[in-house]
């Protein structure tokens, strides 16, 4: 792999706190190696800002290997940037070339208020899980694991849905700020498995109700969420959620 260095212009969203109105700030990133990750480029820029006595750019990040779901930058109009199926932390600078201007914004959604700069509050996702994203089984209740055989195909589909990292890119990508892909991934995982069956109806109804309460928008099937999801969670999960929700609504006795 050929390596190269580049100079870039960054237009970064700066916002001191949730009450501040916020604005774009233009910064220069010099001598950036194509081998750096996107966040390592931000490390370099921040080190420079600190040395100049300025406030570094606040951004969320943790594992830097694409699995914790903490990083959350909207880069050149795309959630997590130009590479498909990739989180911001796994995006590498060889995606850019010398002289590029890169625009970086936080997730934009009413249900994800900005905390500072590129950091947003995603606690709404936790509250949706609280509404039913689990199997009610206390520790110690379980029978032997192999007493519950699961069709491999269904197990694989459940795993693919469960791969969601809860980053919120689906919401950020959606023009309606809908959280349907996130909610459908959890509902699908548990609807596909026998363990999730007893609470199947209430789960779909309650999680959707909580999603609405948090102020996420409606789904209009544009598919932007699937296109931007770093874990490539399938849109078919939304179809499954709709089936689950409708059938629960028609058949539940409560």
């Amino acid at each position, binding site marked *: *792999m050929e390596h190269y260095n580049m100079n870039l212009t960054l237009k970064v969203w700066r916002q001191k*706190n949730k009450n501040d109105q916020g604005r774009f700030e233009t910064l220069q990133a010099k001598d950036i*190696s194509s*081998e*750096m*990750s996107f*966040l390592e480029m931000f*490390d*370099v820029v921040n*080190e420079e800002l*600190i*040395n100049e006595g300025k406030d570094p750019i*606040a951004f*969320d990040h*943790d*594992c*830097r*290997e*694409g*699995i*914790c779901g*903490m990083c959350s930058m909207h880069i050149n109009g795309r959630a997590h940037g130009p590479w498909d199926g*990739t989180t911001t932390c*796994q995006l*590498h600078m*060889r995606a850019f070339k010398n002289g590029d201007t890169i625009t970086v914004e936080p997730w934009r959604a009413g249900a994800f208020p900005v*905390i500072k700069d590129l*950091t947003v509050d995603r*606690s709404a*996702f*936790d509250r949706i*899980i*609280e509404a039913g*994203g*689990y*199997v*009610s*089984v*206390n*520790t*110690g*209740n*379980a*029978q*032997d*694991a*192999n007493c*519950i*055989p*699961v*069709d*491999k195909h269904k*197990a694989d589909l*459940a*795993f693919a849905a*469960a791969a969601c990292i*809860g980053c919120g890119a689906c919401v950020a990508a959606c023009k309606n700020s809908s959280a349907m892909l996130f909610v459908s991934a959890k509902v699908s*995982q548990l609807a596909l*498995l026998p*363990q999730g069956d007893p609470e199947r109806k209430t789960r779909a109804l309650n999680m959707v109700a909580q999603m609405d309460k948090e102020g996420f928008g409606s789904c209009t099937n544009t598919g932007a969420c699937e296109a931007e999801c770093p874990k490539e969670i399938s849109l078919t999960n939304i179809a499954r959620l709709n089936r689950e929700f409708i059938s629960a609504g028609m058949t539940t006795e409560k």
Partner: protein
Amino acid sequence: MLNAKIPAGPLNTKWEDYKGHCKLVNPANKRNLEIIVVGTGLAGASAAASLGELGYKVKAFCFQDSPRRAHSIAAQGGINAAKNYQNDGDSVYRLFYDTVKGGDYRAREANVHRLAEVSGNIIDQCVAQGVPFAREYGGLLSNRSFGGTQVQRTFYAAGQTGQQLLLGAYSALERQVALGNVTMYSRHEMLDIVKIDGKARGIIARNLITGQLERHFGHAVLICSGGYGNVFFLSTNAMGSNATAAWKATQNGAYFANPCFTQIHPTCIPVSGDHQSKLTLMSESLRNDGRIWVPKKQNDTRKASDIPEEERDYYLERRYPAFGNLVPRDVASRAAKERCDAGYGVGTSKQAVFLDFAAAIERYGNIEANKRQMHGVSKEEIIKLGKEVVAEKYGNLFDMYAKITGENPYETPMRIYPAVHYTMGGLWVDYELQTTVPGLYSLGEANFSDHGANRLGASALMQGLADGYFVIPYTIGNYLADEIRTKAIPTDHPAFAAAESKVRDTLTKLMSIKGSKSVDHFHKKLGKIMWDKCGMARNEQGLKEAIQEIQALRAEFWKDVRIPGDINEFNPELEKAGRVADFLELGELMCMDALNRRESCGGHFREESQTEDGEAQRDDANFSYVAAWEYKGPSDYVLHKEDLVFEEVKPTQRSYK
């Protein structure tokens, strides 16, 4: 001499016997007892959920924006359990034995046996929660092998086992939050323990969004905050992984055990430059199928594909024929370092070896062709089929490798090198997971208890969940049963006020330095000292130098660090500064411990103590003990020893040949 409170009786009945006799707390009293859980990884989330289910009032804290993001999420390969579903000779005893041996006979037998006993329950519990483990076509669970064992006892969910297990524990935790049994404090960092009359009674936490300090009371406090690998700056840990909670416990009287026992993982993506912020693991599960090699010729600059078979040195298979590529991590790491130091390394830095899947791709391709009854298939077709199988097993890891390096591991071998991954040392705990401070417990990687001097692959997830789901719910009752008359202590108690003002003073002091160097500057310097002198190989002179260098660096940090922003706002640089301040003390203690332990064992390799063929040489006569350090002040520690008694396993020179 430390008393680990190990129950009497034969090894295989100790836990059963303990459970039969420990004190219980009735449901009405549980409602009045408050427990603080610091950290929400596998250990913390499973403990908080299980204790909430029992009816205790639980408060859980994490510094991330959601408990689902704790670094357990990044564990890749799998979780061990002595289920013997494969009928290949596994048993509780075998798992126990492999773990004690893998740890190079520096773990406590009773704890490890208990771990093996509950391992099966963990799998049951996780499956019941809906954790989507890999399955066979018959619908039953699939297993694979990990290093240091000869059976298939590892359960997995592709290369995302930690994620799936953590999301299981997280969902159980969120269920208890919804039920009101657990209160969750995300974006909060514990900055001190509050002790009243010698017992842990609460914590001081900083709200990371507002910067406000908060006082929280608890009848007991659980430290589940993970390991301290980030002392090295570069490690496979998350950027935020830190030792602050464990270190505050240490400063408050909890002994810190075996700090020098760090695990350097053999298969990580090599460092690419000075900008590097972290290192990425390539799961040990890859060694099921990948073959590790270097060229037979020194300084060979040819591409891997241009080096013919007979000019390749599969050095692990050569040196360890019985275990081959699946030797334990410490052994594999040292072997890679040995080859690179001798001039056989590959890649531009020469600090890398090849992990090659060509043979596995061909083997799987042939199997697949057979399965589909395809005859006379071309080599290309075989390779194509084989790649599909490998993609199903390790696809996410291969993708990650390709994104980071820009190379395609299906076509060309991966380049890998060892990196800091896990810390076996941690807070000293007794059999009940209680530290030397009454009411203060430690679970998961944050404690020292089960892995000795080297952890086997797929055992960290097992230990975290064992501690949280199946150990602490019993052992904490034994303590809290005597606390039912203790009313919740109001947080205007002088001890809370004193602890809060101490924390405030430290933060103010950090902010007032207004020096010239960033926090990362100091962290990187510390990391380099640690990696060079307290890394894969250690010697007396290097360690003595490291101690002095760290002391000097610490003094410089407190004179010259620059932290922008304010205390009372969201300030990630201030968070980092507090953590690095603690690493600067802990790093020194790691070197002191490494200096004290004049033997090699597991991941701790003292160059002065090796066999003729370069293997770690233990000194059981002098060092068969746990080194537990009591904090008296910076650079001032008192060593306490817990003798390790082996009733069941006879320590021998570990051999994987």
